[in-house]
């Protein structure tokens, strides 16, 4: 067993895991943070995207042990402090950017990573960035619209 300790959504957590335990299993099974989903076993679908030290990472491609000491952010930490939806989450609701909701946590986390690096992405840049996130419900139309809207809503804040 491997002892791991990390910060998840601002809280320090630790656990004892098998060496082969994936980060996504540690989040879901040990920490009961079930918002991060598993949609495939080949690191293609992106339902498990979280942030590791500020970078978007598929939590199925990383061992829990490799995340020892890291700062992790998951969908559970994306709302505002008062519990209201964050800018990207609110845009997804406003623009109907989700249907079954299963890919949604990964989509939101990927969108957040994109907008952190590129505050005003073009439609093409958004679509290319989402290559690693598969949605079967929306046809992507409203996801792209939501991310465009989130970018527009976040820009004035960045300018302040």
């Amino acid at each position, binding site marked *: 067993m491997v002892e791991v300790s990390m910060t998840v959504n601002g809280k320090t957590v630790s656990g004892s895991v*098998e060496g*082969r335990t994936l980060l996504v299993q540690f989040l*879901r099974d040990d920490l009961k*943070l*079930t*918002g*991060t*989903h*598993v*949609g*495939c*076993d*080949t690191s*293609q*679908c992106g*339902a498990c995207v979280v942030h590791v030290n500020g970078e978007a990472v598929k939590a199925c491609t990383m061992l829990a042990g490799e995340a020892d000491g890291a700062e992790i952010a*998951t*969908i*559970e930490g*994306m*709302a505002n402090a008062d519990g209201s*939806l964050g800018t990207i*989450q609110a845009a*997804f*609701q*406003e623009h*109907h950017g*989700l*249907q*079954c*909701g*299963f*890919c*949604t*946590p990964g989509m*939101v986390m990927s969108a957040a990573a994109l907008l952190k690096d590129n505050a005003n992405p073009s*439609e*093409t840049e*958004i*679509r*290319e960035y*989402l*290559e690693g*996130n*598969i*949605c*079967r*419900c*929306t*046809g*992507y*139309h*409203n*996801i*792209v619209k939501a991310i465009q809207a989130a970018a527009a809503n976040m820009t004035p804040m960045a300018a302040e």
Partner: protein
Amino acid sequence: MPKDSGIGASSKRREDVRFLTGKGNYTDDINVHGQTYVHFLRSDVAHGRINGIDSSAAAAMPGVVRIFTGADFEGVGGIPCGWQVTDRHGEPMQEPAHPVLAQGKARHVGDPIAAVVAETAEQARDAAAAIEVDMEELPAVIDMAAALADGSPKVHDDLTSNLCYDWGFVEENKEAVDEAIKGAHHVTTLELVNNRLIANPMEPRVALGDYNAGTDEHTLYTTSQNPHVIRLLMGAFVLGIPEHKLRVVAPDVGGGFGTKIFHYAEEAFCTFAAKAVGRPVKWTSSRSEAFMSDAHGRDHVTKIELAMDENGKFLAIRTDTMANMGAYLSTFAPSVPTWLHGTLMAGNYTTPLIYVNVKAVFTNTVPVDAYRGAGRPEATFQLERVVDKAAREMGIDPVELRRRNFIKPDQYPYATPVAVEYDTGNYDATMDKLLEISDHAGFAGRKAESAARGRLRGFGVCSYIEACGIAPSNLVGQLGARAGLYESATVRVNATGSISVMTGSHSHGQGHETTFPQVVAEMLGIDEAQIDIVHGDTSKVPMGMGTYGSRSLAVGGSAMVRATEKIINKAKKIASHLLEASEGDIELANGAFSVAGTDKSVAWGDVCLAAYVPHNYPLEDIEPGLEETAFYDPSNFTYPAGAYACEVEVDPDTGKVEIMSFAAADDFGNVINPMIVEGQVHGGLAQGIGQALLEAAVYDENGQLLSGSYMDYAMPRADDLPFYAVDHSCQTPCTHNPLGVKGCGEAGAIGSPPAVVNAVVDALADRGVTHIDMPLTPSRVWAAMNG
């Protein structure tokens, strides 16, 4: 002015908040105290005789609780099929046994042979790898034509052949159709493949069985579109558990698209094993398992002939199809190529004579069943492809040829020669709207501009009609359904005026929790926020047939309307008592009951309170309480219809197709929530475009699934698709359900494949290309261009 609540409002989805904050409750998020985990050992050959299974080494491995094989299920029923098709000669289809775990033979790659129950999922998986199976590999039957040939190996030794049924429809028309084709001015013939697809909802299937020995009650948590149907099929046909001892829960479900309708062996296994081992048993499918155990879709090989007179008037259609059933009959598999396909072969047209032949074939592949559209995409694809080819051969514009043959608005109700009666429609209206939103008039200019860049541009259209909300029960019973196709709803008004609506339909992305309250709020004049929807739990909802075939609102919504009408009737009786007025004078508006022509009124909440605190109440006339249930069995299908257009550019050097624009003009009748309806169309379009350009389930000649992961099966990604132009302003309301709604879930997947292929063929027509089979990969397109 758009409404901001009630029917017609784009109310924001209330379920989004939990999905966006990680608080959804999907089946894999549920864990029960003391649970064990099962791993299925699946066949790695397509066809093999199981001469022995040695699990002694596996049983001794750490954490193993028990290992099951087919022998453990010998006293248990098989997985049932829910639809019996009768063949051309009046004989029932051949219906093979489908054991929970393979008995004697494995019949497709992925067929479960043994199951290891262990303390952890990893221990179960490790032990499964240590099971020794003495498997004698047999010749596999993969190709349908080969499977039907004399001397072919048989998938099921106890059947007479690999032919499930040979279905003719309408058999009495066969000779007249043959004659009409023989004597026609022109006959256009097309042979085509409707490619095999894998539904791939993003949430893999999960089953968690639990058993309470104290009460003899079973609970199954499962990723299902219809928990009551699973309760019925599994309880009555597989495990012999009566309904009152079996609870099936389908909580948040991450997409279905048809493949989560069916009752699967893993559900029966987990329910059975939980009692056998005395602990809960959980199975979570990996995506790799999903590819080889979720029912696949489509997989038809077809020849269609369209006979016309000199003006292009359609005289007759004859179509022959081989439909792949896979190795076993999945729950509704036999109905898909027959009653959901043959009945739609008239399309939007007045063709007077139609004959459909379908041969359903067993092969050593995963079972094939309904996938978004289910039979209707296969009908629409062949019809709209042959119409497009006919237009070229006749020298008539494809839009004009369609218009010449459209059923006209004054012809409804319109009885087709394939046994259905369309209640209403206006196909010229949706075509007009389509040409407007797709800027058809500007196409020539865009084509010239593409040509200047060395690209080949094409414009393709498609008209479609589909049949949704399959019904009525007495008819589908005659057609072979082993279930009714009504829906139920219970409207429970609480003492303080809030409402719980229990619906037997199920939301797995469609937004019932938002749209259903919009309807009830409109009827009662109260705030949507006072109304909650309850679904997905057989212990909370009286009965239900679930969600598929775009039936939720047309059938389930109608049941909810009927139950709400009963609520209103009773509430008016209570209000008339409170207001000391005649019941006939009571009016309900804006959440208050008033006496017509007076200023006397009583609020909704006061009437509800009186029903539960009946101090001042007509107890001699009516019971206390305010809760009503309705079952709704539709008198007909609904018939959404519309027209789609795709514009593509083809790179002549590589054969790569790029979608430049896609437009959809749909007639869904009345619309409750336009935002959600448009989202449903977007998703359907992506799946249809995926079928046309990207997706294919491919087996090699030995029955190995080559497209068994997202590395090999090309799911549409964001950069494969454009923004879509969608419109649903052409509305001819359904004439026979109370909401006038038709259903919108499948249209996008039905109308888009032919539009895409027609566009590509249009782009390449100058190079002599008349057809390319889907998916239109660059290599196929390049090969078609270069002979």
